[in-house]
């Protein structure tokens, strides 16, 4: 019944120095879903969002619905016609992570939806679902931080591919 092992590491990196973004390019279309894990921290004085730009599209073709808790209360927010897919968050200076699922990324029939969790133990936990209004297969993902903050040195980024039977 099982079709064999999957959840394949496609690419992984540990940043040797702070940098503004990291791009996974030439992503094979041979998987069903992608899972992105970003573990580390950012520069600046405030925690920020983890943003994804698909296929170098920096137009206002993204949107997000957010659920978050800050230790005091839970709340929700939305951004429409955004310029990137907001899928999580990282803390400044302290360790944190974001895990995002990019579902059916290579089909050419549906708009693409990514769902993620931003785990920032110092200040917030969040869940986000983001839409990219494009039916193209995703072949590149640029990962960067809101408010032009840098990914800190030592931050690890890993992209996995999952293949359905």
């Amino acid at each position, binding site marked *: 019944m099982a079709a064999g092992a999957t959840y394949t590491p496609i690419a992984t990196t540990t940043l040797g120095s702070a940098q503004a973004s990291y791009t996974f390019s030439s992503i094979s279309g041979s998987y069903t879903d992608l899972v992105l894990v970003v573990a580390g921290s950012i520069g600046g004085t405030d925690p920020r969002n983890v943003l994804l730009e698909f296929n170098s599209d920096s137009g206002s073709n993204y949107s997000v*619905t957010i659920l978050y808790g800050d230790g005091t209360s839970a709340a929700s927010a*939305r951004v429409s016609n955004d310029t990137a897919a907001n899928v999580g968050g990282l803390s400044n200076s302290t360790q944190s992570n974001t895990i995002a699922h990019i579902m059916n990324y290579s089909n050419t029939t549906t708009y693409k939806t990514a*769902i993620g969790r931003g785990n920032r133990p110092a200040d917030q936990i969040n869940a986000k679902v983001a839409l990219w209004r494009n039916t193209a297969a995703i072949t590149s993902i640029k990962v960067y931080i809101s408010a032009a903050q840098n990914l800190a040195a030592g931050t690890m980024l890993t992209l996995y591919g999952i293949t359905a039977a």
Partner: protein
Amino acid sequence: MLNLISAIHGTGVAASTNSYESIATTTVGAGGVSNVTFSSIPGTYKHLQIRILANGSTAGDQDLQVQLNSDTGTNYSYHTLYGNGASAAANAGATQSSMIGGWNFAIGTGSANIYSVAVIDVLEYANTNIYKTIRSLAGQDKNGSGTVGLFSGNWRSTSAVTSIKLYPASGNFNQYSSFALYGVKG
């Protein structure tokens, strides 16, 4: 899964990930279907994961329902925590005839290309000593509306899970909806 990710990032090197296997997949064809059922699930894994991209034929937001082993009795319960872009809310149900695995599985006006997504974990599904618990991260954004939430469900049975039925609260799953079942080894 978290142990796997931890192992990988403990070294900064991608490790072998052969503990996660694809079991079965269903993609809905033209005309849609009222439900998707994975049956004859082998008990050889530690956990199951279901990865879903789907929308429904009924206008308006609706639930994704989950039943195990064809049990239609009131043996389920659930809790949800969700946000709709304006506020956060919570919900719960006891003595239910199904669990909720996600919300917003609706096509909605002008959003034919937009599909909801869900990642559902069925933990210790073959353990005959405990009731079964599922958890889900699910949502849909429609550029101006949508919902994202966390869902947990309980099935008050110690039986090993051998089948999983997924269905929208009303109507059908539409064409191109995709459901993939995976097994995670212990």
